[in-house]
């Protein structure tokens, strides 16, 4: 379960299946690329940033998001569905006293549709094994130095739920528009390895 995905039996099986389908003329490389590109074009951290910005400016949306994220993100035309069954989305909010961070210790579960393809460190054995053990040290290595009185909650997304962090709105952003606020949100902020 810990090896790189490219070397796993399932990855080899997928490659063989793809070759056979292409050889048999069922599908072409170009068609597969088109499908993948279509998915990836929709799967971007801009989606997560839009959700966060809306939650910062609309208290009602924030409450709905934390209560039932799957329903709330439909208001923005987003979903965790797509070509397969819809996964459950759980958004966890940072506060002055609580910081959330996401990991998948068993593999690399990640809300692709909202955050785009995951960064390579997210899939690394070092991140997966250490963030559940010494999260404060790991976050400091990312440059996020949390005060001692801020509790850390690690979420190990080992099943069919996908997690996203709702960062705190930075101070001094009262005059910014929703679009400008979305521009402040980083992918790392949505994973919890950065403040915003």
């Amino acid at each position: 379960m810990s090896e790189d995905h490219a070397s796993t039996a399932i990855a080899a099986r997928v490659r063989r299946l793809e070759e056979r389908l292409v050889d048999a003329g069922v599908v072409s490389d170009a068609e597969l690329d088109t499908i993948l590109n279509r998915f990836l074009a929709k799967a971007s951290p801009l989606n997560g940033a839009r959700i966060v910005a809306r939650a910062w400016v609309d208290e009602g949306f924030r409450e709905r998001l934390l209560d039932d994220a799957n329903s709330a993100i439909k208001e923005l035309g987003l979903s965790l569905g797509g070509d397969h069954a819809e996964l459950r989305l759980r958004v966890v909010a940072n506060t002055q006293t609580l910081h959330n961070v996401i990991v998948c210790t068993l593999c690399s579960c990640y809300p692709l549709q909202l955050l785009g393809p995951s960064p390579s460190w997210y899939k690394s054995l070092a991140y997966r094994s250490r963030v559940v053990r010494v999260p404060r040290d790991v976050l400091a290595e990312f440059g996020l130095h949390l005060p001692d009185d801020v509790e850390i909650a690690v979420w190990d997304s080992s099943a069919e739920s996908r997690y996203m962090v709702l960062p705190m709105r930075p101070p001094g952003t009262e005059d910014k528009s929703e679009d400008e606020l979305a521009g402040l949100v980083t992918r790392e902020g949505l994973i919890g390895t950065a403040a915003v």
Partner: protein
Amino acid sequence: MGEARFVAGDKVRTHTVDPPHHTRLPRYIRGQVGEVVEPEGAWPLPDDRARDLPESRVETVYAVRFAARDLWGEGTHSVTVDLWESYLEPAGEDDT
């Protein structure tokens, strides 16, 4: 699938069994006591799906929170893990 067996706040202990097939019960929390945060709906059990059993069990999945000091003997953080119902049993009276 029947009713969800656990509710938020229940203390549960994870199984210690190391099965000879795929499972999604991470090793680092086996045999540990945690607290149910919330049920997350019902999903097919990966242990059954990975073995291509004709009928996969469908079970409630729970977010279960563990204290770092219970897992590692130190630390003040919590780790919350999503676990299928059959990975869990009620924690006994003596469990903390």
